[in-house]
């Protein structure tokens, strides 16, 4: 019988340092058979391990167009596992279990305008869907990306932001909380994300919004979206809670009767309003 707790060994293909404490890692299965049959849906997460150190949970942060060749995740150096993960180099082996959880309803979103609102390290769970939508540009309406971080140095995928802005009918509104020091190149705004969102004049109705970021950013962004005509069913987010197994067994990621690992991480605002405040 299969051991659901045993990860697959993955080869690290590339490592990019995004900010002072965030890195992006590209991996593929060591086992070519597994690689050939691997499939994930955009929005799912995986559990990544440094053997002998531990496991951490991160979103798969790229679209699934190259899923049989490679996929990527981003992490911030904050704890035991990520400190060790920081040192991995191409050719090293890490562990992967997944993909787990639900995903973004990209079929349902077809034909609609998309608004992406992200703060800080929350870019990766949105990057995957942005990549997907840009790869399938003709299926979606206007795309507005509002992304902010504390400082210019804290922006993840900074170069990609400018690439995305080159696509037709895509608005990239980037902002930082703290004005950059003299000499730091910056062509975005200096403001909080909710303010920039407010100024963007996005309109609900035939549009969906995906909001991921720190609780305070989400809290202040939601009323703006509501005022602009987004219903609770049209506002999505990707939650995170501490997890160990990712399989709905270890018993720690639940909010009331909802297991974030299995029924999440993607929820609509309507669903969240029905969940107890346990996060």
């Amino acid at each position, binding site marked *: *019988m299969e051991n659901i*707790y045993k990860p697959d060994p993955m080869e690290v293909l590339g490592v990019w340092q995004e900010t002072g404490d965030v890195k992006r890692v590209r991996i593929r299965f060591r086992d070519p058979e597994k690689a050939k049959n691997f499939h994930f849906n955009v929005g799912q997460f995986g559990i990544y391990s440094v053997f*002998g150190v531990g496991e951490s949970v991160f979103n798969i942060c790229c679209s699934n167009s190259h899923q049989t060749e490679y996929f990527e995740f981003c992490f911030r150096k904050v704890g035991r596992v990520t400190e*060790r993960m920081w040192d991995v180099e191409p050719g090293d082996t890490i562990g992967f279990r997944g993909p787990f959880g639900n995903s973004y309803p990209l079929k349902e979103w077809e034909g609609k305008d998309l608004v992406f609102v992200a703060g800080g390290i929350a870019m990766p769970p949105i990057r995957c869907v942005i990549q997907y939508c840009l790869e399938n540009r003709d299926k979606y309406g206007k795309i507005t990306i509002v992304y902010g971080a504390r400082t210019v140095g804290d922006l993840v995928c900074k170069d990609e932001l400018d690439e995305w802005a080159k696509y037709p009918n895509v608005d990239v509104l980037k902002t930082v909380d703290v004005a950059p020091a003299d000499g730091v190149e910056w062509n975005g705004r200096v403001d909080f994300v909710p303010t920039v969102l407010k100024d963007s004049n996005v309109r609900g109705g035939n549009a969906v919004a995906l909001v991921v970021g720190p609780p305070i950013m989400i809290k202040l962004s939601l009323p703006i979206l509501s005022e602009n005509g987004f219903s609770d069913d049209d506002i999505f987010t990707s939650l995170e*809670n501490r997890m160990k197994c990712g399989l709905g*067994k*270890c018993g720690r990621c639940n909010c009331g009767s909802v297991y974030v690992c299995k029924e999440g991480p993607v929820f609509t605002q309507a669903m969240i309003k029905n969940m107890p405040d346990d996060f």
Partner: protein
Amino acid sequence: MSQIITLEQLKSALDEKLSQGCRVAAPVLDGEFASFKEITKADQGSYEPRVAMQNSIKEFFFPKHETLFTFVRQGQDVVLTDAPDFEVDQIVVGARPCDAAALPVLDPLFGWDYQDRFFQQRRAKTTVVSFACVKSDAHCFCTAVGGSPENTSGSDALLFDLGDGSFEVRVLTDKGKALFEGKTTDSDKTGQSCDAPTVDFEVDKIADWIRANFASPLWEKISLRCVGCGACAFVCPTCHCFDMVDEGSYNKGKKVKNWDSCQEAMFTLHASGHNPRGTQGKRQRQRLSHKFVTYPDKFKFYLCTGCGSCSRSCGQMFGVRPTLEALDKEGVKAGQ
């Protein structure tokens, strides 16, 4: 017509199984304490129905510490070796009906979507022989969660102590039949269990209250004396939350699965320092709502068999029954 077996016959049946390489666990008496332990001779066991046990039979299905796989680093590669399958037959004898009843409760959890082979292989390989209760104490409340002193759920055979050195055997499954076939004699004696413990609260109503009162200040109030250890969870036959950790060195080690408890502050602590359940009230709320709301919502069973082990082992005189009673009195009946 009933089937009976004497204590000596029961022991020799166990010894026979032991000699065939079967693993046997039974209550073992150590001073005043009785706990389920693996035995190597039937004589080591103490075969009488008991109310208080120091542990539950859970650990023969879901051990407190278990290796999932081992790894060795070879250059940049890592070689993983799976933990061996559980292949021996196992008999757990002397379970309380409320211990055995936990097994069908846990089946859907470990078999929900992803199959946890560690639990399931043990479950398939194990025969559970329970003793019907001959007494209950003030901690017992199996009746409140659908159990009884002669609950058959989860058992392969239920034995009734006849008080004369023999047991009436009620075989419940094929596994039970395989163990007792040819070992029992016909008799007209039948065993009887004790009266069901009485409770004056209704779990359904409390569950409804919990559902409606997530933010109630009562949670913090009733949880003040809880000091946040894991004793209640670790003696509970149904508590199944676990931790997964890496042990050993960077170059060679293993991944293990350990029991964990939602009452400990570390349980949900995020790496960022944020803790969704940062106070004892929130942690007790999680424990109670998991047992009486979340789990039944998902798997149709209460995550509690009313065995009372939690309150018996709690140094602060807390546990599920006192909590339910407090919620009933101060929440449900007070109409808060």
